[in-house]
């Protein structure tokens, strides 16, 4: 046995923010539970059967107490909800210009693809002090990407992209778990998040190879799967040109508008008839079941690299 750990490691500033909320809740909980338990014991002792304590008549005006503790509970709870929500909003909205890494969960491993084309399994190397955004996919069942030292967790849901972001400040190795039950080796689906100094990270990137960037690999796939036949100038069929599309609003044939994010690009490859760009015929065939999650990530990275803010995460 390795001692009595009572507090998880903190790999970033966010962990401190969350711990502060947690400690305040702990204090509140101890005070409330302490008060209730104290009163239970105090009344039980003072008013035990056979004691000579003074007892008044039947109590009157109980509603004052009721209104009092109902209002107090409501106000405190409302405050807690707002405090929690304000932290969560920051967690939900990723900052711009984060380093983007594609992570695919499958029974029973995590596979990561860095922008430079480096790949790793059950390990994730990131530079300290930089915002990192993960695009999560799952190849089979629901998994959940969980790093306790960062206090963050996000399910990877098959059939769609989920995203999460974090910034690790402290160099070290931290547990990476799968938190959503996923079958036989659920307990072994995990490894380590390694936070490195930026210079070490650069060395690691070089040592880990990656002959081509993810976007460059995506460009090759863009030709191999025949996407370029229609989606590039001079194509045989009239199809939307994809330069500059990523991150911008796309009017759809049903009159609505979507932002062309990772999820939209992915859905358009796998289920092209669901959201057809306005002014085009729904003639694109589906690629569902023909492109692996790994290749999808490369294609998305390529489309992203030719977007208006090209450069973001691509190199």
């Amino acid at each position, binding site marked *: 046995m390795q001692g009595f*750990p009572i507090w998880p490691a903190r790999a970033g500033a966010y962990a401190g923010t969350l711990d502060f909320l947690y400690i305040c809740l702990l204090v509140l909980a101890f005070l409330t539970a302490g008060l209730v338990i104290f009163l239970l014991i105090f009344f*039980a002792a003072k008013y*035990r059967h056979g004691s000579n304590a003074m007892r008044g008549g039947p109590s009157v005006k109980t509603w004052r107490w009721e209104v009092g503790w109902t209002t107090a509970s409501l106000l405190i*709870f409302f405050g807690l909800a707002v405090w929690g929500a304000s932290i969560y909003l920051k967690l939900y909205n990723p900052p711009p210009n984060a380093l983007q890494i594609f992570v695919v969960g499958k029974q029973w491993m995590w596979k990561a693809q860095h922008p430079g084309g480096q790949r790793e399994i059950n390990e994730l190397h990131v530079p300290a002090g930089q915002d990192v955004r993960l695009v999560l996919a799952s190849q089979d069942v629901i998994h959940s990407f969980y790093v306790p030292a960062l206090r963050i*967790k996000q*399910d990877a849901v098959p059939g769609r992209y*989920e995203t999460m972001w974090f910034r690790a400040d402290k160099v070290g190795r931290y547990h990476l*778990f799968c938190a959503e039950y996923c079958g*036989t080796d659920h307990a072994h689906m995990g490894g380590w998040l390694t936070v490195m100094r930026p210079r070490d990270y650069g060395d690691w990137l070089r040592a880990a190879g990656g002959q081509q960037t993810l976007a460059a690999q995506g460009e090759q796939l863009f030709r191999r799967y025949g996407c370029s036949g229609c989606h590039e100038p001079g194509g045989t069929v009239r199809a939307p040109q994809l330069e500059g599309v990523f991150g911008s609003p796309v009017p759809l044939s049903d009159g609505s508008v979507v932002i062309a994010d990772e999820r939209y690009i992915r859905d358009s490859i796998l289920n092209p008839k669901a959201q057809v760009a306005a002014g085009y015929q729904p003639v694109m065939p589906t690629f569902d079941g023909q492109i692996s999650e790994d290749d999808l990530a490369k294609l998305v990275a390529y489309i992203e690299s030719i977007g208006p803010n090209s450069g973001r995460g691509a190199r």
Partner: protein
Amino acid sequence: MHAPHRESYLSAGIGLRSWLLTTDHKRIALLYFASITFFFSIGGIAATLIRLELITPQGDLGSPDFYNRLFTMHGVIMVWFFLIPSIPTTMGNFVIPLMIGARDLAFPRLNLLSWYLYIAGGLITVTALLLGGVDTGWTFYEPYSTFYATGYVILTIFGIFVAGFSSILTGLNFIVTVHKLRGPGMTWYRLPVFVWSTYATSLILVLATPVLAMTLLMLLAERVLHVGIFSPQLGGDPLLFQHMFWFYSHPAVYIMILPSMGVISEIVPCFARKSLFGYEFVVWCSIAIAAIGFLVWGHHMFVAGQSLYASLAFSFLSYLVAVPSAIKVFNWTATLHEGWIRFDAPMLYAFGFIGLFTIGGLTGLFLAALPIDVHVTDTYFVVAHFHYIMVGGAVMGYFAGLHYWWPKITGRYYPEYWARFAAILAFFGFNLTFFPQFILGYLGMPRRYQSYPPEFQIWHVLSSAGASILAVGYALPLFYLLWSILKGNRAPANPWGATGLEWSTRSPPPPENFPATPTVVRGPYQYDRGKPCMQAGHV
């Protein structure tokens, strides 16, 4: 008062037939007691094996698949075949007609049918689990359950489906009974809180259980016929399953805890010899919990990928549903003020309930806070939290009620000192089992892991040590209660000095409950300087 040779419901007929074909609510309650104890034991054996496995960081007892089947079995049996039916079908069945001055439930034969449905569902599920089990977890998340699960998924789900009809019919029976069969003078505000709580529970049973039935049927359709509903491989949406599953399964938590709150609201005034503080508030809090409880299911999905706005709304509503629970705790505590408090076993269990439920409720405030939930959901923090509610709360309430009404049910006293010992043992065993799990959870230990990093071991060892104490605390009543049926001292009609109608008839009650229909002349829990003022009386 009554000649001892007079017939009781127990002596009204002997032989298997008189039990298996009975329509007497009191006998059906005993059928439920026996069968629920059986299922509780199976779930308890699974829990024991889980705690044994977790003493060391590596896997010891069998393969990972065996462990996955164990915790699935523990969850399925404890949720659907112990916790949900526990108090309503046993004590609810036995005392609700007695409490309102009725001869029986509104539909006695439907009541018997409910028991048969429960037994059929339970045996189907146990068969599936003994044939080899399932590895889905009790939540049957998709697309795992359709395409990746091994074992007897279809049979297990079918058993739960069948047992669901038992829930629906029992709820319906209680609702109609409370509306139509209240005796003369028994107005709504003279109903004991236990009746109100069971009524609120019945509303949830009737409204939520059909949603579970639909969800399970869709899961079956997808697994057997490959109709695409939940699995992305078939064009379905896995989050839809979670929405539908938790739309039932979160209110199901209130199905488990509301009846216990009702039991505690009976016991605290009785043993404090003082009227319940804020009766109307306690009553309406039960209804409020049942209503708001339907609007909080999304707090199980904060990291599942639901929309930001959904998460914000569900967080706020989860805080709202905690308010009526807090009000109840304050009212029970205030009831003790200026009482004449006795410490018989039911009251010790009630004290245990209030303490443990308070901790369970307060940790719910942590989980309702969005960013804290992101960190601790799917960890042992959640495991600890819901065990504080369902075991510390619901099961403590179950034992409290069992001891409280035992003299009424059997006509015998249980051995008081053994019972106090068991209550205290269970309280300390429970805390040692589950408190370390809060620490484990915040450290980041995920749930449903057979093996784990070695630094977590000490807390698992403490938890398993506590579980062994808890197991003794739960096993003891089985022995001394059975013993008391044969050898316990005879109990009078009103051994505790309580005020409800059920205490104005003999122990055990005659088959027709009351020799003559009682008239209710006052509200529940009225004491005059520690002396009970019975609800039944002469106008």
